[in-house]
Each structure stands twice: as C-alpha cells, then as structure tokens.
C-alpha cells in the first residue's frame, strides 16, 4: 500500500484483549483482535466487514480508545492526526471523543436518551466545545435538512420516541456530524432498518460524508451495503485481518477464500415445488386488532399453504406479518375470519385447541436465546415435547433426542450442553429440533435467520430445506429479508400495512409487472455491485420527476 500523507487515522499492529470468566474456572484473557493495521486518509471511507465476533466494532471503537465491557487495548498504536490517543490521559480523550472522532451506533432508538429532546442531544458536544447555542442549532438544522429529515426546523423539539427508527438513525448521523469531526465511526447504521428505509438512510449518509469531507469507518456485516459507500474494504475474521483492498478489488476480484465466500453468499437455491398435497393451512378473510387499538392490524388476509410447501410472508416491520403468526397460533384471536388447519377449523383462541392441534403446529422464533430455558440442557429442551406429546421416557426418549440431534447436524456431545455453551446458529438448530420433535405438519418460522450471520443463516436455510424434503413439513416463513425469500419459498405473500398486496407462486410474484409496493421493496434490496445505490436513487428521482 502506498504511504498516505497526514492520515486522519492510523492504526498500527493493534491488539485488543478481554477477560473471560468461564464458570468454575480461573478467569482467562482472550485475544479479540490481533495484528490489525490500517491507514485512513482525509475524506476517505473504509469499510470493515466480517461476521459477528470478527472484532469490527471493537476496532471501530478503538479509534476512540473505548472498550465495551472490560475490553482493553493491550498493544499497538492508534494515531489520530498523528497523535497516539492511547498515551493521552482522560482529559485528552474527552476532548477527542465526540469532537474529533464521533460515533453512529446500530440502534439509534436505544442510543438516544429517552428523557431529553433530540436537539439538546445533537448539539451537546458543540456547546461543550464553546459554540454558541444559536450557531450550533443552525448547524444541526442544516444537517437535518441535508439528511432529508421532515420539518428540519422543528424535529429537534421532539423526543426520541416521537420519530421513526429510520429518522432517528439520520438524527444520530446529524449528531455525529454536528461538531464537525474529522472521523466518524458508523457501526452498522442501517442494519436495524427495513430495506426500503435503509436505502434512503444509506444515500443520506453517503451524501453527508461526501459533502462534509469527513473520513469514515463504516462497519457492517453486509458486503452489498459496504460496497456502496466505501473506498476501501477490510475483511475481518476472528479478530484478524483477512484481506484489505479497494472496494472494486474486493467485490470483483477477491483474493482470499473467505472473502469469496462472503461475496458469493446467498447461493442457497431450490426449484419451486408445485403444490401437490392438500392444503395444510387455509386462512380465510382474517381481520385482527390488539385491544386498545382503534384500527385493524390485519385486514382481510386470505392465504393458503399446501403440505410440504413453503409460504414466505414478506413485509417491513409493522406490516402485520408477526401478528399473522400470533393469530394462527391462537395467541391473538381474530375479530373476523376463520383458520382451517389440516381440513378442520381451528378454534380462534389457544384455550379451545386440542393437544393434537398444538402438536401439529409448531413455531421457531427469531431470538433462539430467549426461546430456550437457560437452565435446561439441550436434551431436556428437545426431550420436553417428546414427553408431552408422545409420552416418551428414559432410554426411548434419549434415543429419539439423539436422532433429532443427528438430523440437525449436531453431534452426540451436544445433548448435555446448556444454551449458553452454544453459538447462535447452534441454538437455532436446537430450536428447530424442538419443533421437529412434535412431528408437526406446519412450522411457523418467524425471522429465524435474521439474527444470524449470512454464512450461518445459509446453513440454517439449507437444513430447513433438507428437513422439508425428508419430513414433508410445511413452513410458513415470516421474514423481511428478500434474499431469504428467494432462497427458500415456493409461494410468496407480500404484506403491507396489514393487507396482502401480492401473493402467488414464487417466480410469478418475483417477475414483473409489479405493483408499486413490491417494486419498491424489490428494488431496495442492496445488490453486490458498485454504483448500485446511485443507479436506484437516480432512477427513483427520474420517476418522481416524470409524474
């Protein structure tokens, strides 16, 4: 790499450690990041990419000499404008943080103080630097305007809960840019957003970076996103650097095997299966609302799913897809319509359902963590439905647990482990085994891969497809991720504001002509090529101008 003159940020041979406390053993120091070096010139954007645990956030925060939860930098140098910030005292760090280097976090909703107005929080550091309030507010309003926030003059008077997630993320970007820093660390700033919102925020961030000439570290697990905003990309794995190159080189000509895997991820695919069996699930004209709400959250939803098929329900947050799952499982009785399951009409409320109804309809959740009792072993978790539905005990139960563990591709050793000893993907596999243990006809999968890294999520999708082939179980697959839908669905239903706006066979739904909403949804999914973002934005502006 060529030497850059006067870089904003230079990290040399960084080593970051944390202390881990394994139960019953002595605390041990664990290396989280080792031997990472990077140089970032003024006005440039470097993308840090990798799976969870790769150390991307840790490296990002090290540019502010900050360690989360006992994480500490034990070796190396972090130079901001040529000064090693690790050697300065607490006072020097306070002058650096929020002023020279600022931070945009993944969840703006959690990162804003709920008790204070947005404007007070946005201009807080500017005021601390001695900028007059009127000037700081003028700066903030200008940034709100640049970032495309509605009513930029008054939005600062609102409290965090009064604006949407996408807007909050933009306000947080404005908060980071307001003190006119030289480096901004963006830590997964669009990951928690819906695709249609993500694209706007991404465009706003990119424009703000370009216009202010600030340097940025852009951390994400989504290579397609980072390709849109970065000049250079560093690929990380297990705290080590795998590859560093220009965005173009990483996308088009990755040198390392692992980078190639990341670029080519989402290769899970299967041919659409025709509906041959009888309908497992028939949802007829369902409307539902939560008590206390004055409007229906689900509006006249009608869907059908055949045995052994996968119906993907796609939509943004608030579209009613999870409510649909609650209605089918009986947690929320609908106020109109009926549900037919395996030819019989289901009781609307959970109380009225037979044990057989319960057994044949299982569910897998997004957060495998919270869906398992942390004090039970894997064997106890999977064994519970075996005992409850089939009365299996002792050796018989153990044998069946083992069979199920084999089916989900986990070995013998896992039966006696606790959930805390499993990785995210393994936890989700145990949840799948628990659902399978009941020998269901239908499994509702609610965002089951959303919390997982792409490569791990792919493994889960493959497993689900294989299990479907062997067991003939039907899936109702709820997700906001269109790539997942393409990978797994036979049929697709697109939901928007509580209603199904488009449904049918997969290839039909994904082929033009589209309705407006499906078009917007499909065109918002980031594609792994440079310049995609500009194309979409230009295209949309043109269409908006043409109307």
């Amino acid at each position, binding site marked *: 790499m060529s030497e850059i003159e006067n870089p904003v940020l230079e990290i040399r041979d960084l080593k970051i450690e944390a202390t881990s406390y394994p139960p019953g053993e002595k605390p041990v120091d664990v290396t989280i990041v080792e031997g990472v070096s990077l140089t970032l010139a003024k006005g440039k954007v470097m993308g840090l990419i990798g799976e969870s645990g790769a150390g991307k956030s840790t490296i990002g925060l090290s540019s502010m000499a900050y360690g989360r939860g006992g994480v500490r930098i034990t070796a190396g140098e972090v130079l901001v404008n040529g000064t090693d910030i690790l050697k300065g005292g607490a006072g020097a760090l306070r002058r650096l943080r*929020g002023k020279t280097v600022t931070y945009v*976090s993944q969840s703006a909703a959690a990162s804003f103080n709920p*008790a*204070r107005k947005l404007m007070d929080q946005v201009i807080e550091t500017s005021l601390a630097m001695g900028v007059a309030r009127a000037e700081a507010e003028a700066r903030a309003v200008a940034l709100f305007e640049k970032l495309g926030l509605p009513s930029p003059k008054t939005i600062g008077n609102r409290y965090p809960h009064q604006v949407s997630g996408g807007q909050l993320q933009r306000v947080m970007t404005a908060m980071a840019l307001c003190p006119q820093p030289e480096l901004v660390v963006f830590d997964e700033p669009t990951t928690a957003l819906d695709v249609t919102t993500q694209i706007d925020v991404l465009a706003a961030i990119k424009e703000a970076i370009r216009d202010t000439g600030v340097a940025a570290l852009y951390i994400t697990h989504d290579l397609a996103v980072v390709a849109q905003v970065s000049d250079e990309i560093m690929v990380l794995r297990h705290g080590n650097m795998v590859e560093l190159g220009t965005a173009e080189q990483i996308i088009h000509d990755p040198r390392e095997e692992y980078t190639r895997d990341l670029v080519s991820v989402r290769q899970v695919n299967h041919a659409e299966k025709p509906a041959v069996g009888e309908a497992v699930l028939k949802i007829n004209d369902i409307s539902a609302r939560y008590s206390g709400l004055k409007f229906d959250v689900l509006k006249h939803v009608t869907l059908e799913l055949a045995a052994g098929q996968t119906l993907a329900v796609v939509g943004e947050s608030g579209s009613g897809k999870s409510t649909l799952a609650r209605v089918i499982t009986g947690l929320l009785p609908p106020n109109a319509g009926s549900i037919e399951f395996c030819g019989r009409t289901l009781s609307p409320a959970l109380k009225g359902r037979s044990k057989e109804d319960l057994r044949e309809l299982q569910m897998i959740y997004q957060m495998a963590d919270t869906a398992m009792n942390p004090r039970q072993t894997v064997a106890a978790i999977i064994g519970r439905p075996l005992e409850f539905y089939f009365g299996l005990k002792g050796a018989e139960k153990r044998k069946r647990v083992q069979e199920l563990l084999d089916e989900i591709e986990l070995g013998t050793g896992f039966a006696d482990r606790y959930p805390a000893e499993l990785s995210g993907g393994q936890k989700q596999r145990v949840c799948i085994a628990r659902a399978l243990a009941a020998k269901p006809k239908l499994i509702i999968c609610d965002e089951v891969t959303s919390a997982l890294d792409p490569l791990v999520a792919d493994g889960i999708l493959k497993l689900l497809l294989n299990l479907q082939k062997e067991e003939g179980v039907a899936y109702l697959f709820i997700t906001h991720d269109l790539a997942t839908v393409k990978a797994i669905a036979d049929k697709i239903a697109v939901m928007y504001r509580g209603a199904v706006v488009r449904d049918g066979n997969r290839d039909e739904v994904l082929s033009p002509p589209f309705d407006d909403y499906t078009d917007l949804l499909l065109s918002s999914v980031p594609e792994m090529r440079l310049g995609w973002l500009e194309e979409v934005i230009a295209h949309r502006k043109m269409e908006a101008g043409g109307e």
Partner: protein
Amino acid sequence: MITSIIGHPVVRLVAHRIAMGLLLLFAASLLIFVGTQILPGDVAQSILGQSATPQALANLRAELGLNEPAVSRYLSWLLGALHGDLGTALTNGQDIADAMGRRLGNTLFLAGCAAIIAVPLALTLGLVSVRYQGRWPDKLISAVTLASVSVPEFLLGYIVMFIMAVRLRAFPSVSTVYDSMSLLERLNAIALPVTVLVLVVLGHMMRMTRAAILNVMQSAYIETAELKGMRPFRIIWRHALPNAIAPVVNVVMLNLAYLVVGVVVVEVVFVYPGMGQYLVDHVAKRDVPVVQACGLVFAAVYIGLNMIADLVSILANPRLRHPK
C-alpha cells in the same frame, strides 16, 4: 381545546390515580373504624374506673352513642370527618380537630425540616456513590448510611443526645416547643430529633438512588454520552438521573411518609409534642375517636404522598407527557 386537554393520556392517568387515591382513603377509613371497634376494652369503663356502677356505665354509654348500630356510627363519623368535624375526645371533651391541628403542625414542621436536609443529601450522596462506584467514596458512603439505618431509632436518639446535648452542650436534649417561640428557637429545639430522622431515612433513599442510577448507567445512551466525551458527573446528572426519577421519587415519598407517621419513637425520646405522642397518649386511654382521627390523618398523609410519587413518575415519563 378543553376536549383535547381532557383527552390527553396524562390527564386521564392523573385523574385515574387521584380517583384511586380517594377510593383507597375511603377503604382505609372503613378499616380504621372496624379495627377500633374490635379492640378489647370499654371506653365507659376506662373513663369511670373499676368502681363504677352498672347504671352509671349504661348512662355514659348512651350519652357517648355507643349503643347505636355500628353502621350508623360509621356513617355519621365519616360525614363529620368530611366536614372537618372529627368529634370530641371522650376523655377530656376537647375538640379533636383543634387539638390535633396544632400537633399535626408540629409533626409536619419536624418532618419538613428533616426532609429538606435528608432528600438533597441522599440524592447527592447517591450521585457521588455512582460517580466513584466501587472506589473508597462509594464504600465509605455505603458503610456510614448502612450503619445509621441499622441502629434502632431510640438508641440513635440517645447516642445523639449524649454526644450533642450532654457532652458538647450544643443543643437542648428536650425538644418541647411552645407557640411563643420564634422560628430560630424552634429550629434550635428540634435540631437533635431532625438529626436522628435524617440519619434514619438517609440510607434507604441514598441506596435506592444509587441502585436506580446504576441500572440506567447500563443503557446504550449512556455509552453514547461517554463517546461524546461528556464528563462523568454530567453523564450521571444530565443523562442518567432524569431516567431514574420514577424509582427514586417512590422511595423518597415512602420515607417522607415515614417521617410523618412513623416518628412516634423519636417524638417520645425527645418529648416533642407531635402527632405520635398524641396518638400514644390516647391509645393508652382507649379514647377511640382520637385514635380514629389520628389513623385517618395518617392514612391521608400516606396515601397522599404515594399519590404524589405516582403523579411525578407519570409526569417524568416523556412517552406519556408527549404522546406520538
């Protein structure tokens, strides 16, 4: 305009809480009345003494209205209380509202002085503890407040009296106050009971403040403030405390209620003419109307302060104050 104010969720919540408070007060009055009815003993007997003739006892009972059915006695008592008429004391024929008014004023004065010192002090110590969490100032504050809260009040009273009044001769050991005393003289007289009360309530409030703020300090927005380079004390004061108001106010109000209704022992130790002594005196004499009146006032104070805590918690919540 008016309909929009009435429709505001905060107004509805506040109205609901106030209505619940009144309902609770009514229930408390019922409980107090029933409770005093099932107490053993006979007022007429205790007034006239063991040597009274049956005829004299019957006459007195009729005069005091003790032969009426309980329901009608309760209703006339409640109706009177609603008009500010708490009846007359059986033992000395004084108007209860009058006699109690002065006592209540004394008790509120003592409680108020203790609160003015204890509440800000507890909050400050709580904030300091959080700032230096796990370091020596935190440990020192914890140790001292825990010790003071663990010692029984009467013992604490005598220790304070021994040191301040007997050894140092700084303040009087007896806190009797008269109408003719000036404010300064009164403050001087109650210095010792105030000290004891502050020591008793400090630990509880300080520890709750500390715990509530430490809980908030785990939030993502505190990390945001740290990454904005804010000073530690500003983070605690401006970012953490506003989000810890609800639990802190609840504990503060519980302690204020204790200062009013629970200071019997301290009043007796320092011979302070407050509500506590008044109540204790008349319980001994089986003067039921006075006991009922005191119970009702204590219940009103308790419910009122807790209602204020609820209201502050509601008003401190920006989600309720500023709905979407």
